[in-house]
């Protein structure tokens, strides 16, 4: 006797089993899997049990940022570089100092932090977001002008999305140099900046 590979179950029982299996499958799918995996919540159970949070969470981890293009670098090309940028470098730079600065960026807002530097002055910098949040940033400088126009010229040194960056910066002209940080999230982000070099703080 070879086979006893199946149960002896009545036709009615089998149909019942299939129906139950189908119901369980559909029920679990609609109440839990659909909200958690696809972010759709037809019965409101995803919200009720918190399954929907899984979907949002997973999605926010995707680094799906807008691609940065050449036109995003610096001020619009219509604004010409001020002549003051061509001034010679001073004989003496600012004294070497160091600072640690905390900048808080409100949700969905942008904030600038800049320091004064003379032409060819050099500063080491590092910045990072406190909880590794990724922000949009534009590291740039503005030429010091006697009569600045309404829309000032600025030069972008780095435009990027990051949670941390470091380097040495040598100012190409006298003026204000620093970062524009944009918070892309719904929560406040704290940025810590550390500087060491030939610069002066405002205020």
């Amino acid at each position: 006797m070879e086979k006893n590979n199946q149960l002896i179950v009545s036709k009615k029982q089998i149909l019942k089993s299939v129906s139950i299996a189908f119901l369980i499958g559909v029920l679990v799918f609609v109440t839990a899997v659909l909200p958690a995996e696809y972010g759709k919540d037809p019965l409101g159970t995803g919200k009720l049990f918190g399954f929907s949070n899984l979907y949002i969470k997973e999605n926010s981890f995707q680094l799906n940022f807008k691609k940065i293009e050449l036109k995003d670098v610096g001020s619009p090309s219509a604004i010409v570089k001020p002549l003051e940028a061509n001034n010679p470098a001073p004989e003496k730079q600012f004294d070497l100092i160091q600072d640690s600065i905390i900048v808080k960026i409100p949700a969905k807002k942008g904030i600038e932090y800049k320091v004064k530097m003379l032409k060819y002055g050099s500063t080491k910098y590092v910045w990072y977001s406190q909880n590794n949040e990724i922000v949009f940033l534009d590291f740039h400088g503005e030429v010091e002008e006697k009569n600045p126009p309404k829309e000032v010229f600025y030069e972008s040194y780095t435009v990027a999305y990051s949670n941390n960056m470091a380097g040495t910066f040598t100012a190409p002209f006298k003026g204000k140099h620093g970062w524009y940080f944009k918070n892309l999230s719904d929560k406040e982000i704290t940025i810590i900046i550390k500087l060491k070099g030939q610069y002066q703080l405002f205020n």
Partner: protein
Amino acid sequence: MKLNHKKYFLFTLLCILSVSIYAHGVDAATQAFLVGNKGIAFGPFLYIGAKHMITGYDHLLFLVGVIFFLYKKKEILIYISFFTLGHSATLLFGVLADLQVNAYLIDAIIAASIIYKGFDNLGGFKQIFGKQPNTKIAVLIFGLFHGFGLATKLQEFKFDQEGLFVNLLGFNLGVEIGQFLALGLVLILFDFWRRHKSFIKFSKITNTLLMAAGFLLLAFQLTGYFLN
């Protein structure tokens, strides 16, 4: 003693469940490796193949269904050989011929294979349709689809063509090793369970749950297909 078995079963079940949280596809670290890899890397591909099989619950559910009523070692060996033959063929062929099959549809067919096996174990074909399809051929055919599933998973990463064949063999061998390990674990559990009266008592429920899991996966994959 009785309690011990139950505990053992529960523990193993928890292990399987916790592993399956990672579930399907390939995790981020593996993905980084696959994309960055250049040339021959037999060992890593072997590992990825084995890991994919052990953490791929749909393959495992199908295999549980297949061996559910197989008591003899020889029978188990024959059925698993058919399955292995099927999925090896399409895995190698799919990747080498660069066949692009929609992953959601393939996974939906794999989900259907789980429903089929649960239904078959309940004796549904004989009772309702009066005729049961040849189970060995069915395992072979679904093996072919499972292999396409594995192939599409690998093809999602446009990895280096250099050393492709060797890497593919490594991956395939890894799949067999993973299947062997997972199956070994399942067989040990079944061996314990079959000695109890509860096996026959619960086999109806178990196969119904198997079908339920199949329906769930089917809905999951089809929704994925229509949304993307």
